[in-house]
């Protein structure tokens, strides 16, 4: 083993092919026991194809025919109506046998699904010629509420910071912020900050890694010239986030909770965005994620748990930001821990993010 202190243990290989196998199996179908994912299928598709993208296996593991028909399926989920346009999770409320493109009050676009659909289409290198860009701007308007937050679907009271982040990424990709009231949205983010230095999901809620990532990413995406955080606020958020990394190497989502693979992304990404990515111990992070690998492929939230596309994707995204230093012995086993860089703000491989920006932007 290498003499450097951070390489004082052996890092087993990352089972890249097995992980690709796991997400491909999920793409082809999920058992009925996971029927609760039906109303979030677009996100599942994103985590599966996103995993392949981060592993650099989209071209190898899928055929052009597959990709073409998947793009078709996603476009069938773009629907329009009096709330504007956007993507729904899937056809679980479809009314007719022909691909209906008009939405009803019970079959509407969904803001999180719109974000994941755009990224998935970018992974599949779609040219976005069918995207109703102006319609999406109206949809964002229909989702924003008085307090600056966004609902998941127009008119619903279901709202928290996740949806605000999605609205911001969508506006950023469209390069058009006319669909959102940025000032109000930033005020809503500020109202979710807690005494610990992190952000809760809604005002008054406990600081959580996922929503703190989202708050930081949204603030950095916002088209404002000055950072709304004071230097001491920023420092406090960094301190809080760093302390979420356990001696095991994994991150926990809240103070005194156990480590969970997904928070390696949420808190790692938060630190990266705040310019403090070098404070993450990437070697121990990788070793934690190595123990979360399921023997038949896929990455679980914790050692001994069952894998799923969500934790698989977010683990790979964390590794894309924090590839571990590798010893000479480990190198001879191949470069299983090597990744392309990730865009931490929109959560996509940099090349995919670039594609999304150039094809989705509304020409000026």
């Amino acid at each position: 083993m290498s003499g450097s202190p951070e390489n004082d243990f052996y890092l087993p290989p990352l089972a890249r092919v097995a992980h690709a196998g796991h997400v491909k199996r999920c793409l082809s179908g999920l058992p009925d026991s996971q029927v609760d994912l039906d109303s979030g299928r677009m996100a599942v598709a994103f985590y599966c194809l996103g995993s392949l993208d981060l592993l650099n296996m989209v071209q190898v593991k899928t055929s052009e025919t597959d990709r073409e028909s998947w793009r078709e399926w996603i476009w069938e989920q773009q629907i329009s109506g009096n709330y504007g346009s956007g993507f729904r999770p899937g056809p679980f409320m479809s009314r007719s046998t022909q691909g209906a493109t008009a939405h009803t009050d019970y079959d509407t676009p969904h803001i999180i699904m719109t974000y994941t659909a755009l990224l998935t289409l970018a992974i599949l290198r779609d040219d976005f010629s069918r995207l109703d860009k102006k319609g999406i701007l109206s949809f964002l308007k229909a989702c924003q509420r008085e307090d600056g937050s966004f609902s998941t679907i127009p008119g619903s009271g279901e709202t928290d910071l996740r949806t605000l982040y999605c609205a911001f990424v969508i506006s950023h990709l469209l390069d058009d912020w006319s669909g959102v009231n940025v000032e109000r949205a930033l005020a809503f983010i500020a109202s979710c900050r807690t005494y610990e230095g992190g952000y809760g999901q809604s005002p008054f809620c406990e600081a959580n890694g996922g929503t703190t990532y989202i708050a930081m990413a949204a603030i950095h995406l916002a088209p404002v010239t000055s950072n709304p955080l004071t230097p001491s606020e920023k420092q406090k958020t960094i301190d809080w986030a760093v302390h979420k990394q356990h001696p095991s190497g994994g991150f926990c989502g809240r103070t005194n909770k156990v480590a969970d693979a997904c928070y390696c992304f949420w808190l790692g990404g938060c630190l990266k965005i705040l310019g403090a990515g070098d404070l993450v111990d990437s070697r121990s992070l990788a070793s934690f994620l190595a123990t979360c690998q399921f023997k038949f492929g896929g990455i679980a939230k914790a050692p001994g748990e069952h894998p799923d596309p969500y934790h698989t994707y977010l683990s790979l995204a964390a590794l894309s930001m924090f590839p571990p230093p590798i010893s000479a012995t480990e190198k001879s086993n191949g470069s299983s821990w090597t990744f392309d860089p990730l865009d931490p703000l929109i959560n996509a491989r940099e090349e995919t993010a670039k594609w999304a920006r150039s094809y989705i932007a509304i020409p000026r």
Partner: protein
Amino acid sequence: MTDYVRYVDRPGWDDVVPIEQYENGSPLAPIFYTNEYKDVANYFRGIVKTGEKSERVLELTEHIIRLNPAHYTAWQYRYETLIAIDADLEKELKLMDELAITHLKTYQVWHHRRLLMLKIRKPIPELRFIAKTFLVDAKNYHTWSYRQWLLAYFNDEDLWAGELDFVEQLLYADIRNNSAWHHRFFTVFQSGVHDGEQDRERVLKRELIYVKQSISLVPNNASAWNYLRGVLEQNSIPFSKMITFVQPYTLPMEEQTTDLVDLDNPPPSKTAHLPCALAIEFLADVYEAEGGDSMLKATELWKSLGNEHDVAHKKYWEYRIREGLRVLQT
């Protein structure tokens, strides 16, 4: 499901035209629905198309929700139906008591409850119900979020009256429950001044004693230290005011000197694992704030954290040292 009775064979459903889910040949991540789920979803789509809102819609949506509690459209349609037929919402809430415990981690269960409460407007029994769910999971985010919403939205002094006792019970059961610590902060400092809490000096003193005693029992508890920091910052009290309290926690057990009972500065318990990294970090922050020569004392403490007491965050402590020295040189 061999004894499943399809809707077509159920009395009172023959007028509904079921609608199959439309899906093209290459769907992404399709769910392999059971026949039962397909049947009930087909009837649900059929009902939604006609816009019917009736008693039997409650039966149908309950069926769907029990199979798939994340089906947000079924919840939405159920709520609209309850309102349209002027249903007994208290009865609905009883049903929700059962479903909330079964599906504690499903957002929709709590969202629906919130909508019901906006109509029923009887939040006090809700606090008791939430307390019951904490026996299953005392850190459930949705449940806490619902409790915080109830309190802030109805903001009734009767509602707030028991909150501190409630938090104390939870912290007694698990002193590291950060959700409970957070809720304490929300209750005491972020929700206005409640009855009996008007004497803010007294409240502040009480909170400082409470958190210090908690630290003296279990020093290695980040939730308590974060609370202490939060209370000080919220009240613009410099950290240096805590130096007498904190110092013993930064020393090993054999260097503990005090046997005096000092309520303001309770010493570490005899079984404490010392020195405590969180105390060293706190003391270093005090020195850093003093600046000047004290900055060197701070860097010494950060060194000891990175090399010995908190090696998992070595990179972070090295960064604090770099930043500290940089400030010193400018």
